[in-house]
């Protein structure tokens, strides 16, 4: 328990440090950090529409974050969630406009196809990882570019809606994810994300498979020695992570845009990964870190209206968070390595 508490403090300090450096940068561009942060807060939580807007931004970050958690806990660094999100989003749209089905069922089939598309997309790097021990970080990063361009190609050359925009035809209303409130596009996707986070946390803690997967993640040599098929486990973990990445795309398509378009959900996959890292791979923790990043995104909409700071300041703050979280990971490793040396002395 004290370990977990210490991890929490560590991450909190990382965020505060990032915000502090962000404040310095804001001062350097001749703006008041207090004003900027207050505007961010107001933009994110000022009234019920704004809160709903924040939650709308949170949803894909959360689902992508859970996808990243599955990978991290299972010892696989899936940096390809962005690509799986694009594939899943496109696949859901395809089912949504091209395959008429009864309401409800239509939505579910579209989501399932999105999940399969995400899993299929990650199966390529997963295969190379398992078969040839190719570093999955590199191959999943590269697969992002292919995914984004591939879906653009599909959209523009094969399924373009007649008219000027690079987007598919709109999906049929029978495939919509229902909205939660009348005043916002916020939809059941958020509920899907929350339930998913809880379920994934439960799976890791309470099932034999989850135990095996998390052992491969935390102590691969121990897992191998203990009789777990490490390669197979890694493949499954990547596949599951990619499937959830695909689901994130499906939810975004069916809940928000109701079509697929070029650049339809930029950066959610990466934000999700950062949210998961900041939460130390805990799906429940990711709920809160995803909300934090969702609030930053949504709050920044007001930033250029009310202050002289650019929206990009939130990108800077995110980058600073990544830096301080990684610095912390490195420091922890160093601490652990000396602990390792001492462990052997009696």
């Amino acid at each position, binding site marked *: 328990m004290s*370990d977990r508490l210490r991890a929490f403090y560590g991450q909190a300090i990382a965020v505060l440090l990032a915000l502090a450096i962000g404040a310095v940068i804001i001062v350097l561009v001749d703006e008041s950090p207090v004003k900027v942060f207050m505007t961010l807060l107001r933009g994110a939580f000022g009234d019920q529409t704004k809160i709903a807007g924040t939650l709308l931004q949170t949803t894909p970050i959360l689902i992508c974050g859970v996808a990243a958690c599955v990978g991290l806990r299972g010892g696989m660094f899936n940096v390809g969630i962005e690509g799986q999100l694009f594939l899943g989003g496109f696949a859901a749209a395809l089912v949504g406009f091209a395959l008429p089905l009864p309401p409800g069922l239509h939505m579910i089939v579209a989501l399932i196809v999105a999940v399969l598309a995400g899993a299929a997309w990650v199966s390529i790097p997963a295969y190379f990882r398992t078969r040839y021990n190719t570093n999955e970080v590199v191959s999943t990063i590269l697969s992002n570019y292919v995914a984004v361009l591939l879906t653009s190609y599909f959209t523009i050359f094969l399924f373009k809606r007649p008219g000027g925009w690079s987007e598919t035809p709109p999906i049929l209303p029978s495939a919509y994810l229902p909205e939660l409130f009348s005043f916002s596009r916020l939809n059941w996707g958020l509920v899907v994300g929350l339930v998913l986070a809880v379920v994934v946390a439960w799976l890791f*803690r*309470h*099932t*034999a*498979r989850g*135990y*095996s997967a998390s*052992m491969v993640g*935390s*102590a691969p*040599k*121990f*897992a*191998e*020695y*203990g*009789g*777990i*098929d490490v390669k197979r486990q890694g493949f499954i973990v990547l596949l599951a992570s990619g499937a959830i990445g695909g689901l994130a795309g499906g939810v975004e398509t069916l809940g928000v845009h109701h079509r697929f378009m070029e650049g339809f959900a930029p950066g959610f996959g990466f934000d999700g990964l950062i949210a998961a890292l900041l939460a130390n791979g805990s799906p429940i923790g990711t709920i809160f870190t995803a909300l934090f990043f969702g609030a930053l995104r949504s709050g920044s909409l007001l930033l250029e209206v009310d202050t002289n700071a650019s929206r990009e300041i939130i990108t800077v703050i995110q980058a600073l968070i990544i830096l301080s979280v990684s610095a912390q990971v490195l420091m922890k490793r160093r601490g652990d390595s000396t*602990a*390792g*040396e*001492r*462990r*052997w*002395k*009696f």
Partner: protein
Amino acid sequence: MSNAFSTTTADRPAENAVELVGITKRFGAFTANENVNLTVRRGEIHAIIGENGAGKTTLMNILFGLLQPDEGKIRIDGQDVVFGDPAAAISAGLGMVHQHFKLVPSLSVAENIFLGMEIVNNGLIDHAAQIEKTRELSERVGLKVDPTERVSLVSVGIEQRIEILKVLVRGARTIILDEPTAVLTPQESRELFQTLRRFVADGMTVIFISHHLEEVMEVSDTVTVLRNGKHVATRPTAELTKADLVRMMVGRDVSFDRRPREATHGKVVLDVRNLWARDERRLPALRDVSFTVRAGEIVGIAGVAGNGQTELAEVLAGLRPASHGEAFLNGRDLTRLSPAAIRKTGFAHVPGDRMIRGVDGGASISSNLLMGRQYRAPWSRGGLLDWKATDRDAEAMIKRFDIRARGPHDTVKRLSGGNIQKVVLAREFTNDADFLLIDQPTRGVDIGAQEAIHSEIMSQRAAGRAVLVISVQLDELLTLADRILVLFNGHLMGEVDGNEADDETIGMMMAGLQPGEKERELVS
């Protein structure tokens, strides 16, 4: 030594090289050192012994500036000092040779020795000067090394010499050695002791931590015994016997005589035939090894660390490919199976490298004991884990194996080394496997626990299991094994009956000689 108790006068250097007065160190509610006093006279070899968790390492870490005491004083050469970090301790003339060497394998011997204090000429490292100085020092103190050799190519014994030279180059007058002989042959140990005696004859002081009581008896002038973080006694070694030391360490009598046993004639469980394997450098590490282990039999593998034992254990466990040969367990060839499949043939394994292979240090005791059973009742049903049953099971194991922990949720890496080993043993010994591969059963485990572990191994034998024990501690094999096989340079040098084995014969075979060859050939 006759003037050992005379008083210090102002014009003579202080009598005591190191004095620790009333040292207390707490970690939360746990007191690692409680009011410990240690006085080390100049020019003596001072051994510090005690069980795991007795506070030896904490005390040495405090002396070397790695930890700060909560109470107490440190005096070096009669001067009060406060060491904020090891650098301060080094500049006060202390040097520490750690149990696990900290050398850079890709650099040469001389580069390692001068690492961090390179001899610089016009902004460039003066390699010639470093090599020259290394050679000069190595000859002066009688620790032969080749200054230009890469460290990755030298033996463990040489690595230790390099570590000692490193400490000397930094001007140490008092050297602390942590378990220095754990990795050495009996012959190498003897050479080390000669070196240490030369050091003290030159007026230096040696503090050394050890588990091997024979060594303590052989080499030390004075012994300090710690138990449960407290100072038990400091006595001249000459006044003590081994039994006295054990009694002071453990607080009771412990015996390491050969375990009595009934002869057994079980069926062959493990059958290793013409096994070859390579090490990380792709060099042959196991050469044509063949042997069998029968049910109800303990076979010991003796040898100096690094003569193929690790490779043998890993090949059998499926963690390293065999380049040739077979190893049948219950009729199935282990060299063709994955680690997971090998487990299913009835294979239990206590790995030599317990922190990496044996446990997930960051996880709880329960979680570590669950490994390998997560798909079986009562630990799980229908794929769902029953953590309550797992915790209950863990509590029973903690009791049975006397694991010193607060409970099943304690994080494993917070336990002492001996207790971590007990977690591994608890898991592997309760798996009902036909064959147990036990690599270094009591490495770093205290004497009381060693006895308990030996009893557990004997009861596995009595239960009809086939047991293969790999150990660098010869006395352990003499206590346990029905037959002892000696590995040297990947070859099996031969087999000795456990009832007739003696140090001398096996020691020769460990050095690569057949018994009967003459002693003088050892020198060449």
